């Protein structure tokens, strides 16, 4: 029979079974769609080269700091060191410094804060960045040329400048300097996200205009995590050779520069040159691979489910196949008949899968750019389509082959002669039980894992911060333009700003502080080097904040020992400090830290600890030592708003202009919004694990339902006999459910063994540590058994809710 006719017959047959079609298409379509999306992502990260020429030769210098072998910072570089590295002849073909930051565009009335990167002309040259308009930096804009020009991104041009065609030549003002726009990068330009995934630079500025903070450019102690040296290795060198030269040079120079500084006595800097691809991808490929594996397990469950459903359908169609066999159909004809149906359903499913993959990709692009690099490059391509349809068609072939393999062809035709159970289509109990066991085991593993991740994520999301974040906003005021030259003028200006702000009815309290308890990124926090003894003792690198007497009470950070600063101390700035519990334990592990001294390198007079406060908990950050020093002169503040009230940037700027027209808001963020940002990944994990767990459960339900349906279809006549001789519907339900209990229990037991294996593997072979929690397993077992029982009841309901004659008639 022609395949087209078979397909037509298959379509007609499927039309009569919309429930079956819907279940299979949804089950496979959703899981295959997610798999296609994960395949797409992994293919992009692992096989698609970076869109830069000679990407294999591109490296980023990284300094890892160790004190006495103990890791201090995984990456932090200083400018003088990087400069010396770039100057060594013969190592690199080209290099460029790059430093990331944020700049306020002062000639815009809204004073927007833009993501900025300071680079050398070689940066765009190495990347061969394409341009939509204008050009890249040239040699005339190289370091020390002091030529104020700016390159802007395509998105900034579109959104901020409304895609004005005459954008080239327009001006942008940053830090009182007016820059001329010379180029707009092309839409397809994908900048290397060296600093962090999802960081999209909006303006590139020449290195010369990098605002110098203190003696940044010459100070070997001033390490920063947002400045890099990026380069192309010279053809004559290997990475190892270059790393060796740089390691020797930097450590020698650092030792010479830091001679006599106790804090850095045991510091060793390990200079590495990871490839640009490694820097951009980080450990994301292992995470996305794990995601792919998780979805593959889901796909496996779906495949088992569909096998069950296809077998159940085949069993229900036994009469049709028996008639076909009686009329001379050979096994291949039966196969074609089954294959045509499965092919049609799988094709529908793969179409749905492509739609689901598009949705998943769009969700990934929208929500995960900060966590997964290169995700913005995701798109459905030919490889993806081939993968989707290839998997679906391969599955249809496998399902049909597996089903036909179970058909006892020799018994098909004789089955017509009796009103028996269609014995020609019986699948052995061993196979059925194996399917049920695998179904339950895989589902239990997935549900347990997801419950574990969900619990972990919810714990992180709900973990108390240890301070009051409600109505608290951090603001950073830029006073630079106000020409406060002396310390007194500065202090007076800060005082005026505070007075202006506190007078506003929306603001209830105010505290000056150099930084917020929870910064926008962990890297923004200031750290300082201190020792517990002059010229020696324990080395501690606490985060430090200069605060006034209101800071701790406003934020409700409780004192556990000693005292807070007084208002007078905040003005006078004596050398005293309040530390957190973690730091107190470092200073004196066995007793009180009160009255203990803390020495800053090159300063004789110590800070004396007068108080100890509770630790605060910042998501994604380990307990870190903190040190608070008295001061009222900071131009940044914690603002506490009255309940339900707030001020936006423009309102703040309006207030600030009342004090001085040259001062403006540099930064503003509420504590709750930062908290939300920091827990957003955990929330995504929580949602994903809940969704994946639920999906696993639904799939388990569908699969077990399929298996029960098949069993009930096979046993329908037998159940009819039992009903005829007096078995009540309840007894029949108990009988069917009871028979399935054994494979369910074996499946759960198998899942425990596999989970133990997984636990041992993860703890011994990965950086992750998994704790033993039985709650997930118990919950998974309860959910799966309940789902199985419900699925079983649904499957048997049709038989037991009708008169016995229907079961007897087959």
């Amino acid at each position, binding site marked *: 029979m022609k395949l087209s006719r078979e397909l037509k017959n298959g379509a007609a047959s499927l039309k009569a079974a919309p429930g079956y079609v819907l279940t299979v298409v949804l089950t496979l379509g959703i899981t295959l769609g997610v798999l296609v999306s994960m395949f797409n992502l992994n293919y992009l990260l692992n096989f698609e080269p970076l869109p830069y020429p000679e990407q294999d030769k591109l490296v980023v210098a990284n300094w890892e700091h160790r004190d006495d072998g103990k890791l201090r910072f995984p990456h932090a570089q200083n400018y003088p060191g990087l400069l010396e590295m770039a100057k060594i002849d013969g190592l690199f073909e080209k290099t460029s410094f790059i430093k990331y930051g944020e700049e306020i565009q002062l000639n815009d009335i809204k004073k927007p804060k833009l993501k900025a990167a300071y680079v050398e002309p070689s940066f765009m040259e190495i990347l061969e960045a394409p341009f939509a308009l204008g050009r890249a930096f040239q040699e005339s804009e190289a370091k020390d040329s002091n030529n104020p020009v700016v390159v802007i991104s395509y998105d900034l041009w579109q959104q901020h400048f409304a895609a004005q065609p005459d954008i080239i030549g327009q001006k942008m003002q940053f830090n009182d300097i007016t820059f001329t726009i010379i180029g707009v990068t092309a839409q397809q330009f994908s900048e290397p996200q060296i600093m962090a995934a999802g960081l999209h630079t909006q303006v590139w500025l020449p290195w010369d205009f990098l605002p110098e903070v203190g003696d940044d450019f010459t100070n070997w102690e001033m390490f920063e995590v947002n400045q890099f040296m990026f380069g192309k290795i010279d053809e004559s060198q290997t990475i190892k050779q270059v790393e060796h030269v740089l390691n020797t040079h930097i450590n020698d120079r650092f030792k010479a520069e830091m001679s006599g500084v106790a804090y850095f006595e045991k510091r060793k800097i390990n200079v590495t040159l990871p490839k640009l691809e490694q820097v951009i991808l980080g450990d994301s490929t292992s995470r996305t691979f794990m995601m792919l594996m998780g979805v593959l397990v889901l796909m496996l469950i779906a495949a088992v489910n569909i096998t069950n459903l296809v077998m159940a359908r085949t069993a229900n169609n036994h009469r049709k196949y028996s008639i076909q066999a009686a009329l001379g159909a050979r096994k291949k004809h039966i196969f074609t008949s089954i294959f045509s149906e499965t092919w049609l359903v799988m094709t529908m499913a793969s179409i749905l899968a492509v739609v689901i993959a598009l949705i998943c990709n769009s969700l990934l692009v929208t929500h995960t750019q900060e966590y997964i690099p290169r995700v913005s490059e995701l798109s459905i391509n030919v490889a993806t389509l081939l993968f989707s349809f290839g998997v679906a068609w391969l599955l249809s072939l496998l399902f049909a082959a597996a089903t036909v393999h179970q058909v006892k062809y020799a018994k098909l035709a004789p089955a017509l002669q*009796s*009103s*028996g159970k269609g014995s020609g289509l019986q699948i052995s109990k061993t196979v059925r039980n194996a399917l049920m066991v695998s179904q339950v085991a895989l589902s239990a593993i997935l549900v347990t894992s997801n419950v574990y991740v969900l619990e972990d994520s919810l714990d992180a999301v709900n973990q108390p911060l240890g301070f009051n974040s409600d109505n608290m906003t951090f603001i950073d005021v830029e006073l630079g333009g106000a020409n406060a030259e002396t310390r007194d003028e500065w202090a007076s200006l800060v005082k005026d700003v505070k007075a202006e702000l506190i007078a506003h009815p929306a603001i209830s309290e105010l505290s000056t502080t150099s930084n917020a308890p929870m910064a926008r990124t962990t890297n923004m926090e200031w750290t300082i080097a201190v020792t517990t003894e002059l010229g020696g003792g324990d080395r501690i690198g606490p985060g430090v904040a200069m605060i006034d007497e209101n800071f701790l009470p406003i934020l409700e950070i409780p004192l556990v020992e000693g005292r807070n600063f007084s208002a007078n101390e905040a003005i006078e700035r004596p050398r005293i400090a309040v530390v957190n519990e973690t730091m107190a334990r470092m200073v004196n592990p066995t007793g009180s830290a009160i009255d203990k001294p803390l020495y800053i390198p090159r300063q004789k007079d110590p800070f004396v600890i007068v108080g100890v406060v509770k630790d605060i908990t910042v998501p994604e950050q380990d307990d870190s030592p903190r040190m608070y020093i008295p001061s009222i002169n900071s131009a940044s503040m914690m603002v506490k708003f009255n309940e339900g009230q707030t001020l936006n940037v423009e309102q703040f700027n309006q207030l600030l202009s009342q004090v001085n027209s040259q001062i403006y808001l540099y930064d503003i963020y509420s504590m709750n919004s930062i908290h939300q940002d920091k827990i957003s990944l955990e929330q995504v994990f929580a949602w994903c694990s809940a969704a994946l767990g639920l999906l696993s459960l639904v799939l388990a339900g569908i699969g077990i339902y399929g298996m029960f349906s098949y069993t009930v279809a096979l046993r329908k*006549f*037998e159940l009819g*006999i*039992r*009903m*005829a*001789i*007096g*078995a*009540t*519907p*309840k*007894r029949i339900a108990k009988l069917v459910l009871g028979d399935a209990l054994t494979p369910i229990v074996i499946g759960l037991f198998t899942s425990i063994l596999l989970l133990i294996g997984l636990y041992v593997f993860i703890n011994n072979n990965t950086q992750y540590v998994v704790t033993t929690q039985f709650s997930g397993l118990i919950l998974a077992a309860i959910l799966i058994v309940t789902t199985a029982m419900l699925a079983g009841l649904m499957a048997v309901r049709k038989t*037991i*809710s*009708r*008169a*016995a*004659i229907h079961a*007897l008639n087959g």
Partner: protein
Amino acid sequence: MKELKISLKNITKVFATDEMETHALQGVELEIHAGDFVSICGPSGCGKSTLLSILGLLDSPSAGEYKIEGQDVSNLSLTQAAIIRNEKIGFIFQSFNLIDELSVFENVALPLRYNEQGYSEQEIEKRVTESLEKVSMGHRLQHKPNQLSGGQQQRIAIARALVTNPAILLVDEATGNLDAKNGDAVMQMLKDLNDDGTTICMVTHDPRYADHATKRLHLHEGRIVADVEQLGEAV
């Protein structure tokens, strides 16, 4: 006057689809008394099997009144029907309908295990053994049905139908799957049971076997067109 076991009044059964209605039974009136041996004959599609299904509470009538030993069973729930079937009706099917996975003993014991009152294991063993002895199959307790001949399987089916001491035995073409010799043997067994007082209602195509009955019903297009008391046989 013999006790009235079964009473059907104006029983109708309609099978409806989206496109048409089929009247399988139309106003059937029937009374079966204790000790009766009723045969139901008629051409294919006349409603014999439907009538037997309704008599056995395997299906419910669309309209009419059905009583077993005076109890109205016309509109029972599925559970109530199962309980009555278990306690008052014994089935013998054309294709034996034994459960392959169960031994002869367990097949026969099955109705007792479904009984709501719950029999003790000793009682079950006693009843099963007695029942199998009646059909001369007491020596095959642990055999599986597929190890037996068709005639032997039907005898097991009869033992299973008798094990609860039902009010009536419903027999659906009990000899249809048997050769003449085995068919005759089964028929003789039914006759003997009837002689011992068992009430039987049997559907058959075979006029020879229909003649064994004390009352012969002829169905045509869902109606009883002849109701013949075979007095000579009954005496």
